[in-house]
């Protein structure tokens, strides 16, 4: 066991020495892998932020029932009663057309337009705050409400959230496909880099085999090289995306503030980032493993 650990430590030291001997080549490989990984990582971070943004906006989905202009308070009360019986409704409030007009007056630039109209064009409305999580029952409630007398329009603002969720799912699929393609690309990059390294160390490999080195012993420094390259490439990608998030973050925050939101761009959960880095390391390891194994199989010397 000790000998095994010692051999691993020795291989790791050898790999690090190899990087130190040719730092420019190592850096170029890391940059190539980093750029390849930055694209799916950036898309993943973007999707995470869009999903979070959806959560911000959709903290409380609403259902708005607009009445006909000639509706009475009794008509509104019937609607309130229907909403009160629905489990998806958390709370509701009646918004008389006068209050709606007053709100509109307060909005910048609307005063002159409304003054020109002469009379209040807005209807009475009942606004219900919905509990998230049961879109089907909300849809059924909306259909029932539309059948009530004096109901002009039932507006369910969960619809766009569903569209957003569908778009996010599509985006996630696209990122997964992109990540898979680039993972294959990264394995190919590592495979080729390690292949060149193997060719330059051909005589050492041959001598090692002749004096009793196992394939695992020969393979070890190369797979360390692949794994470290993958990990360093992952870190480079993460650095690139983190820098982008930092550069865009203040502008996005300023834009969100104009909508009264404290939304900020974020990289994502640390655990997921850690897993991504580990995945990059595993991809590098796999590329190197395949490369050395292929070479060892092709060697004339058993």
């Amino acid at each position, binding site marked *: 066991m000790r000998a095994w650990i*010692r*051999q691993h430590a020795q291989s790791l030291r050898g790999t690090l020495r190899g990087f130190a001997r040719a730092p420019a080549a190592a850096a170029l490989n890391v940059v190539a892998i980093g750029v390849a990984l930055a694209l799916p990582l950036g898309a993943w971070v973007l999707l995470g932020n869009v999903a979070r943004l959806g959560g911000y906006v959709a903290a409380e989905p609403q259902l708005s029932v607009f009445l006909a202009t000639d509706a009475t308070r009794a008509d509104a009360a019937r609607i309130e009663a229907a909403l009160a019986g629905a489990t998806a409704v958390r709370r509701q409030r009646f918004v008389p057309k006068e209050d709606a007009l007053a709100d509109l007056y307060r909005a910048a630039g609307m005063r002159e337009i409304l003054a020109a109209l002469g009379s209040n064009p807005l209807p009475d409305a009942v606004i219900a705050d919905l509990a998230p999580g049961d879109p089907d029952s909300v849809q059924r409630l909306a259909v029932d409400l539309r059948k009530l007398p004096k109901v002009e329009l039932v507006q369910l603002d969960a619809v766009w959230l569903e569209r957003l969720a569908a778009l996010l799912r599509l985006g996630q699929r696209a990122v997964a496909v992109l990540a898979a393609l680039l993972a294959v690309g990264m394995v190919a990059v590592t495979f080729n880099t390690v292949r060149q390294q193997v060719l330059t160390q051909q005589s050492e490999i041959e001598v090692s085999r002749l004096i009793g080195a196992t394939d695992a012993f020969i393979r070890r420094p190369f797979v360390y090289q692949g794994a470290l390259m993958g990990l360093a490439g992952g870190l480079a990608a993460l650095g690139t995306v983190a820098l982008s998030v930092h550069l865009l973050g203040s502008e996005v925050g300023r834009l969100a503030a104009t909508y009264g939101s404290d939304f900020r761009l974020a990289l994502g959960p640390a655990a997921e980032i850690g897993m991504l880095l580990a995945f990059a390391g595993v991809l590098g390891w796999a590329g190197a493993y395949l490369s050395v194994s292929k070479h060892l199989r092709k060697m004339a010397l058993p």
Partner: protein
Amino acid sequence: MPAIHFNRVTKRYADGFEALREATFAVEAGEFAFLTGHSGAGKTTALRLIPAIERATSGTVLVNGQNVAALRTVAIPYLRRSLGLVFQDQKLLHDRNAFENVMLPLAVCGEPPREAARRVRAALDKVGLAGRERAMPIALSGGEQQRLCIARAVVNRPSILIADEPTANLDSEAALGIVEIFRAFNQVGVTVLVATHDSALIERFATSVVRLAHGRVAAKAAALATA
């Protein structure tokens, strides 16, 4: 039990050439033997069958009682660690110094660094290269390079030492020095098998000679060392 036993060994290459034909001979444990014959007689092939660099087409090659032909590929490295191999083309790593070249077999076995360093120095000392640890192979003479190969072969304390034409490119004085080193290892119990066509060396040192001709064992004779 012989350290090396060839029993009706035939080695036929893919092009049909038979390098060995029904070759049968044995080298006893602790023996110093020469394998001789003209160029193309099958000496190198015979030596390559012992550490399973080549596999016999038919017959059995026993090394310390172990049938090399029946060995699984994963077991070959462990067989090779029990042997000391000196190659005709030396196979030194020219980007490593003398110390690092000799260290390689110990690194393969996972020897602790301090013990490994001690054994490397001892091996270099035994072949007369003490103080040349940092020398690169290119800076060594032909004889010194061959000594370095021997140090690498013996550093793992093998029970059998095999050398393929170790004196081929050396002058007679350097060649004598090399064979003296082999003899010194043989005297402490290491079985030594040296392939050579240098009859002067054979006459001077051999206790046993296996003569190959066209892949067949032409003769195995005991000879007395005169040196």
